[in-house]
């Protein structure tokens, strides 16, 4: 599934606001528990890590286990004191890193 992550966060905020950020990453999150029709276990392949940075500083991150549902959804907060750029990354078991950025204007 070569889809893009979906992000929802405000484009503007006031200094000191705590904003809500919603993210959704299309991914099957293959748990490693399922078996195919021949009875062989389908190997695990999940997004195992998510990070959120603002202007280069860590805000929130998550280590994910296979118990996170497919199309991992993560919602969290960030306190913004200045304008800048959020950078989000998702890391697959196979090492691939997908990233996305969003700017915010803080007055």
């Amino acid at each position: 599934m070569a889809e893009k992550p979906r992000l929802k966060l405000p484009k503007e905020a006031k200094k000191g606001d705590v904003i809500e950020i919603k993210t959704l990453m299309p991914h099957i999150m293959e748990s490693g528990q399922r078996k195919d029709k021949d009875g062989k276990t389908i190997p695990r392949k999940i997004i195992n890590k998510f990070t959120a940075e603002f202007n280069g500083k860590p805000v929130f991150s998550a280590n994910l286990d296979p118990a996170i549902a497919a199309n991992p959804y993560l919602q969290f907060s960030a306190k913004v004191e200045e304008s800048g750029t959020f950078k989000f990354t998702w890391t697959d078991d196979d090492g691939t890193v997908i990233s996305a950025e969003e700017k915010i204007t803080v007055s």
Partner: protein
Amino acid sequence: MTRAGMWAGSAAIALIVAGAFAVVAAGSRANAQANKREAPLETKDAASVQPWKRYAGWPARDESKYNTLGHLATAPAPTAPRPVGNQVIGDAANGGKLVADRNRGGSCLACHVMGQAGNADLPGNAAPDLSEIGNAGRTDEWLFNYVYDARVYNPETIMPPWGSHGFFTDPEINDIVAFLKTLKSPAVFKTALDDPNKRPAPVEKRDNLDAIENPAMWAVEKAQELWNLKSASGFSCNTCHSEPQATFKTWAASMPKWEPRLDKVLGVEEFVARHAKATTGAAWLMETDENRALSVYLHFLANGAPIAIDTSSAEAKAAIERGKVLSARKVGQLNMACTDCHGKAANHWIRGQWLGDPKGQYDHFPTWRTSLLAIWDIRQRFQWCQVNIRADELPPDAKEYGDLELYLAAQNEGLKLSVPGIRH
């Protein structure tokens, strides 16, 4: 370049420009025409994969002995109870296990509270509470026959014929009767939620049109790509329908519809398959990803529009009547009709699942299914209901499904479309 070459070059450019104008003109003409004439439809070939094969991962069973919505096969009900005497001897402990065994067509607990059977873990209430049936003065013979084939006592029953349709053997029914005779006190539930009479009906609160909440919203984007995708013919949907947001504001809410060229009711999915084939040549058969994406999109464009189908023409009336009859036909090994669950037992629980009224069961299709991570259209939903009650499903473009869909849509008249839905 020679002078002749320059002339040839200019002529070539002029031809190309003229050609481009012609295509644009053809496009606008096509647009204008598309709004006026009958939509071209592929009428020769089927709109689904031939021969129809059940989806991978769905239970594979031979249900040829039983009715489908397409043909009749079920043996008639017995006319009298079997004489088994009133000394039914059985193993009550085994009976207690059998009534909770989901692999036997859902288990008795799907519909009945039965004391502590199955740990009273989310039993259903589509049928009477049997927790005190041991004290209800019923004979062993009555209990045996009610399980074996309840139709001998109640021809209108929705209870499956557990014996005569081969779910349980006679010794197993003896065990069940022995267990029923031990039920003499009300069930004790661990939590209020386990009690189906106290469990609140589920309310769908998710925002199904929020792309972060509903993965099916990706289908809307995918469909827009498909809309512009030129087939080998050089045409795309966009060639004739360059403003879908405006053109299809209510179209999906007017479907399904009787199609005289095919002598059947067409739903959106079948229309897409046949219309694409006949225009751009795209082969978007029913139950393919492309077809589902376009069905989602065409419904999405009409979101907010109230369902307003033709119910007054002679053909529509006849189809709705046929659909009504089909909805009451008992099918499958479980011998159930749509109206059993979504009529007689509506607004009750089967095990942990709520049975809804037909009104409200159509306006959100196609829908995302969270349990399967897949988009289902209404035809696949029909097919799954059939397979679950152990009846053979029909191909998605079966005319019977068209009649049934029209009947269902008629019961949902006035409800506003909200697609893609999101459900379990």
